[in-house]
Structure formats: structure tokens, C-alpha cells
């Protein structure tokens, strides 16, 4: 036995609790990356067995067969077959099965056996199976399959002890891999394998006389044609409330904290270090701070997504929304990514990985940035409070709230329209992808597994804030700071910078939509993150100050802009591709610059046309 880490791979059908098992084996020692050249998530982790063997675990994408009908499934197939470049073939495959639902997994097990590699079958969720009165003759099953079998309860403490012990026993002996007999299964092969799996199940599994009806009873309400949609709406409402209100205190704490830290650096450093001081305060700290401030929202949105996913609700949401979204050319599974995009398009675009059809996935990625993300809120709030009176219309509705709602509605409507147009022009010749999805039984979500999932996502977000987004922020700081203002110059230093030059150069282009050069300058740092434009407007109108700054900016803007300009800027923000990080994520997720450029250009064109119409219409109506 070598001292090198042993490689374990988890294989299994979707919904077998594979990820819970992975979480409970590795805890927080997980690494999430991408497989080289593709946008499939590679989840790996490590643990040490009771006998001190160091083991690395790879959580392979879930699959019903080794046929490889999506990029995710191809990864699983190629790694299992040892064909994947740069990925060593696993020493031991753990095939994870849901003990309450063996049909589909057992067929996969029979297929995996043909590969000839050392393998063990893990019957997960054995506690639920026992509670329901399902009995499984493990010895007989092991005999029939010719495989060692171990039971586990991934979500309970100590639930994987037996698995660890058996892994040690298994690894203590040497195992020879047999030659692979695997060939792509034909329909006849699949049917034969399913028959064999059903025969084994009939021989070793005793089902309870009274089947579990809880899932069915919940579903009769949750999937009800009317009540189902009402419940979905309520869940979404609570989720939005959570994202926007619960996160608020934490976000304020973070932004105040970063502001204080920047101020501290400002005060501590001698003024003669002006440039370094400015870099640290305005480039580094406020740059990173303006991204990290979204961490509370990201945590809350992923908390909801993972809870609903674990509970088994996500597949139901896709079921309820499939036909409704289908009208706009979207797949039912696009629902969750688009929903996440209301917090931030970045996790939304990352979440499109659940869509296995490439065209459906691209459409979803294209329109995700049109969903009103939380970074637009500071900009909307600023302009609305400065220009829209807080009067009550129709008796009960606050006009400011109504305008805000209108901006959200405009985002959603335009996203659906773009999707319908994309479907019509880009893939007119392709019929819609099928919708075929297992609706798993409801399960109580386990907090530990959820916590690990949220932690992993938060870590990924912070890592990105620390790399891509940070470098973007530094570039934008550079543009806004150089060249420095000449001695004795009047007005804020940014007026002499590259950003101002670009702003002045852009002004003729932006004049038809009612923007002055100050707005053009503010839009440049606004590329780093939309809400940075607020601070940038403060800078170009030379407003200093901490918390009260936003109010002060609003008052200045109300004097300097016409209502037509303000409305035009609001409309601009609905559509404009004002987020470098989103574009960077699109580039990464689609594996090239093409779709990033497409997104940038179509959003820019949409923004320009819409702002142009708004500005001119508002002027024609005499809104000054």
C-alpha cells in the first residue's frame, strides 16, 4: 500500500443523498472548482479513515446511466472509465443508492459493474426506509449483485461510521480491476438491466403493506393547479422579504465597517502618501467592500435554495413553472436561476448548471442579468427619492413604491421578451428540450448539510471577490485616479482622470439619451458594480460625507438634472450591462467570450434605445 491518498469517487443517480453523504464524509474540507475546459463543477474533499488512511473523495455529477447525455454526465462516464485527461481513475467507487427507492440506482449499479472497477454499494437513507417498514435482505442483495454493501444515514452523526470502517477493510486488501466490458447501452440493454434490477428488488426487498402517503398528501396541495401556484408565490414572497430585509442590518454593518476601515487608513497614513492612501482606501478597501457587502444576501438566497432543494421542493417548483415559463421559451428548471438573479446575477448564472440542454441554458444566462439585482437598488432608491414625490396614488399606493415595482416589472417583462425573441431567431429550428424530472419524496432538510453547502457557496463568492472582481476594481480605480489633478486645480480630482476623459468622449454619444458628462463619468466606476455609480456621482459633484451623503447627493441631483434625465437613467439601469463581474461569469460559464459579447451588446442596445425613447418622450411631455 502506498502512502499516497486513496481516491474515492461517489457515483449515483440524482436525489440519492449523494451530496449529503459527501458533506458528512468531508465536512468543510471541500474544494469546488471546474473540470478543465468545461463548466461542470468539480467537488472534491478529503478525510482520514479510523485506521489513519488519508482519502480524497470526488463527488461525481449525478446520472441515471453512463450514456453521457449532458456535459455533466459525460464527466461521470469518462472518470469512471478512466478516460478523463488529468483525472486519475478512482481506486474505489462508492455507488450511492436511496434505500427507499432502489429501482433506478440498481440499474445503474448493474451498468457500473460492467466497468470492472472495485466498487461498493452504499444504501443511504436506511433510517427512512426502516421507518417506512421497508426491509432489505442485505446478504442476499450483496450475493445477487456480487458487491459489498454498506448502509448509511448520511445526515446523522455517526451515520457513516460503518462506511468508514468498511472502506478501511476494503482498502486493506488489494483489488484488481477487471477489464471493462462496458459499452454504450442500447435500449434493449437498458430494458434487460431494468428487468434484472427489478428481479433482484423483488427477491430481497419487502415493501410495507401500507405505502407512505405523506409525500402524496403534501403534493396534492403543493402541486394543486391553483393552490400550488399560490404556495409558490408565498414562498417567493418570504424569500424576497428575507433577502431584502433580514440582510439589511448585516449589510449596513459591513459597509459601515469597510468605510470605517478606509477612513482609519486615511487618517493613519501621512498625507504625503496620497496615492497609496487613495489606492488602499478607494481602490482596495472600498472596492472589495462594495462586493463583500452582498455576502449576507448571497448567504440568505443560498440558504433558501438549499433548504428547498433538500426538502424536495425545487423539482416541484420546476413542475409548476414549466408550462408558464415555456410560453417564453424557457425551461422549467430555469426558474430557480432566474429567481436567484434578483439577488445577484452571479449566483443565478452559476445556478444555470442544473439545466442540461445547452440552448436552454444559454437563453437563461442571456436574460439573467435583466432581473433586477440588488446592486441596482441603491441607484433606484437614490433617483426615486430625489425625483419621485412620496405621494399616495389610488388611495393606498405609495408612488415611490409604485415606480420601484414598475422597474422590477420592466426587468421581468423584458427578460421574458428577450427569451421569446432569442428562441424565435436563434434557435427557431430547434424544438423545446424535454422536461423529465424525478419528484423525490419530501425529506426533512438537515441543517449540517445545508450549513456546509452555504459555507461552500460563500467561500466561492469571496474567492471571486478576492480575484476577478478585485482586479476589476483596481483597474477602475486607476482610471478614476490617473492622471492626477495638476497642482492648484479646481474641482474634484476625478475630473482630470482617464475616467473623465472617457466621460467627455462619451458625452456626445450619451447626449441623445439625456446624460451629461458627469453621468458618463459615474457610469465608468459603475461598471465595477452598479451601486458604485452612486458614490461616483457623489465624487463628480464633489460631495463629501458619510452616511448622510446619499441624501445630499439626491438633493444636488434634484437641482442639476431634469426629470427626463432622471427617468432616462432609471431606464438605463434596467437594461445596461453595467456589471463587469457578471460579464466575467458569463464568459467563464459559457466557456468563451462569444456569449459575453452577445450579452453586452444586446443589453447595451436595449438600454440605449429604451433610454432614448424615455428621455425624448419625457421631454415631449414637458417633464423638466
Amino acid at each position, binding site marked *: 500500500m502506498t502512502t499516497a491518498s486513496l481516491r474515492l469517487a461517489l457515483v449515483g443517480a440524482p436525489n440519492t443523498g449523494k451530496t449529503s453523504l459527501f458533506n458528512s464524509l468531508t465536512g468543510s474540507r471541500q474544494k469546488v472548482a471546474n473540470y478543465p475546459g468545461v463548466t461542470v463543477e468539480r467537488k472534491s474533499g478529503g478525510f482520514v479513515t479510523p485506521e489513519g488512511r488519508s482519502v480524497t473523495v470526488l463527488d461525481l455529477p449525478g446520472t*441515471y*446511466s453512463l*450514456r453521457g*447525455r449532458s456535459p455533466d454526465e459525460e464527466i461521470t462516464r469518462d472518470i469512471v472509465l478512466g478516460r478523463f485527461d488529468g483525472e486519475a481513475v478512482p481506486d474505489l467507487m462508492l455507488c450511492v443508492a436511496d434505500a427507499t*427507492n432502489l*429501482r*433506478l440506482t440498481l*440499474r445503474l449499479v448493474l451498468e457500473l459493474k460492467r466497468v470492472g472497477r472495485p466498487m461498493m454499494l452504499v444504501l443511504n437513507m436506511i433510517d427512512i426506509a426502516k421507518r417506512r417498514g421497508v426491509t432489505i435482505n442485505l446478504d442476499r442483495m450483496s450475493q445477487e449483485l456480487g458487491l459489498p454493501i454498506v448502509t448509511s444515514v448520511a445526515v446523522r452523526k455517526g451515520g457513516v461510521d460503518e462506511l468508514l470502517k468498511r472502506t478501511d477493510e476494503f482498502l486493506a486488501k488489494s483489488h484488481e480491476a477487471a477489464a471493462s466490458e462496458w459499452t454504450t447501452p442500447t*435500449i434493449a440493454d*437498458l*430494458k434487460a438491466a*431494468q*428487468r434484472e434490477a*427489478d428481479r433482484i428488488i423483488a427477491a430481497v426487498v419487502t*415493501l410495507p403493506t401500507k*405505502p407512505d402517503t405523506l*409525500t*402524496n398528501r403534501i*403534493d*396534492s396541495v403543493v*402541486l*394543486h*393547479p*391553483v393552490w*400550488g*401556484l399560490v404556495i409558490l408565490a408565498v414562498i417567493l414572497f418570504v424569500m424576497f422579504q428575507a433577502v431584502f430585509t433580514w440582510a439589511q442590518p448585516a449589510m449596513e454593518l459591513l459597509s459601515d465597517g469597510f468605510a470605517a476601515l478606509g477612513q482609519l487608513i486615511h487618517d493613519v497614513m501621512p498625507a504625503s502618501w496620497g496615492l497609496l492612501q487613495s489606492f488602499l482606501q478607494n481602490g482596495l478597501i472600498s472596492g472589495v467592500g462594495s462586493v463583500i457587502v452582498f455576502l449576507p444576501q448571497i448567504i440568505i438566497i443560498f440558504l433558501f435554495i438549499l433548504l428547498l432543494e433538500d426538502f424536495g421542493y425545487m*423539482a416541484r417548483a*420546476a*413542475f*409548476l413553472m*414549466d*408550462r*408558464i415559463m415555456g*410560453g417564453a421559451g424557457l425551461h*422549467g428548471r430555469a426558474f430557480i436561476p432566474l429567481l436567484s438573479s434578483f439577488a445577484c446575477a452571479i449566483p443565478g448564472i452559476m445556478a444555470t448548471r442544473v439545466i442540461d440542454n445547452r440552448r436552454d441554458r444559454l437563453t437563461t444566462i442571456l436574460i439573467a442579468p435583466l432581473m433586477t439585482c440588488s446592486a441596482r437598488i441603491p441607484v433606484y432608491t437614490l433617483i426615486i427619492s430625489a425625483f419621485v414625490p412620496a405621494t399616495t396614488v389610488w388611495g393606498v399606493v405609495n408612488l415611490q413604491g409604485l415606480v420601484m415595482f414598475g422597474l422590477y416589472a420592466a426587468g421581468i417583462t423584458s427578460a421574458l421578451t428577450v427569451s421569446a425573441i432569442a428562441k424565435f431567431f436563434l434557435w427557431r429550428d*430547434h*424544438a*423545446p*428540450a*424535454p*422536461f*423529465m*424530472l*424525478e*419528484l*423525490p*419524496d419530501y425529506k426533512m432538510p438537515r441543517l449540517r448539510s445545508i450549513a456546509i453547502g452555504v459555507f461552500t457557496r460563500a467561500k466561492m463568492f469571496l474567492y471571486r471577490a478576492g480575484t476577478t472582481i478585485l482586479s476589476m476594481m483596481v483597474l477602475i480605480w486607476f482610471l478614476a485616479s490617473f492622471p492626477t489633478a495638476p497642482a492648484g486645480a479646481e474641482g474634484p480630482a476625478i475630473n482630470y482622470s482617464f475616467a473623465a476623459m472617457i466621460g467627455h468622449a462619451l458625452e456626445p454619444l450619451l447626449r441623445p439619451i439625456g446624460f451629461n458628462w458627469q453621468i458618463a463619468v459615474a457610469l465608468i466606476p459603475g461598471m465595477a458594480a452598479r451601486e458604485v455609480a452612486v458614490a461616483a456621482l457623489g465624487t463628480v459633484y464633489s460631495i463629501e460625507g458619510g452616511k448622510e451623503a446619499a441624501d445630499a447627493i439626491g438633493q444636488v441631483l434634484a437641482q442639476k438634472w431634469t426629470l427626463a434625465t432622471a427617468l432616462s437613467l432609471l431606464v438605463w439601469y434596467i437594461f445596461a450591462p453595467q456589471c463587469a463581474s457578471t460579464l466575467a461569469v458569463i464568459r467563464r460559464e459559457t466557456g468563451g467570450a462569444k456569449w459575453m459579447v452577445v450579452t453586452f451588446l444586446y443589453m447595451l442596445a436595449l438600454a440605449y434605445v429604451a433610454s432614448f425613447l424615455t428621455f425624448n418622450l419625457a421631454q415631449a411631455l414637458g417633464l423638466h
Partner: protein
Amino acid sequence: MTGDPDTSQDNLQDIRLGHADRGFVGKIIRLDALVTGSSLSPQELEQRLVEMGFVEGARVEILHEGTIRRDPIAVRVDNITIALRRSEAMAVIVE
């Protein structure tokens, strides 16, 4: 697509799962993916259905229907529940 799915029925008692109502209980007789409204090739559709457990002899029951045009449907196939559109369910011949 080519023709009405019903024309290929060779037995009057056989119906296509895609036409069945909520509450329907039956048994799968065979798969026939040649004439459905699905975008998948017949072979691919049949393969996916088999992978999801739609095999001859399995007991099927339509548990739930979607809001718009009663689509998609949630089908109990033996002891698992699969959601699919009626256009794909057309390939499943039941009695």
C-alpha cells in the same frame, strides 16, 4: 410531427399516457416513441423513458397535472414519481 398519435394504436383498449386524465391507473404495455410531439429522436426519447423507469409491466398512475392545459403531469411509476410533459408521455402505451 407526422400524423395523429392515435392512428398508430393497434388495440382499442391501449391508450397513450399523454392522453390519460388525472387519477388514471394502468400498466405499461410498451413504448412507442415514433409519433410523439417530443423534440427528441424516437430512440433518444425511448432511452430516456427507460432510464426513468418506464418499462413494460410497470404500474403507472397520474397523480398531478400542471395548471396550463393540464401539462406537465406527475406520474407514479411503480414507487417513484416522475414529472414529464404530455408530449413525451405520448410514447408510453398503457392499458
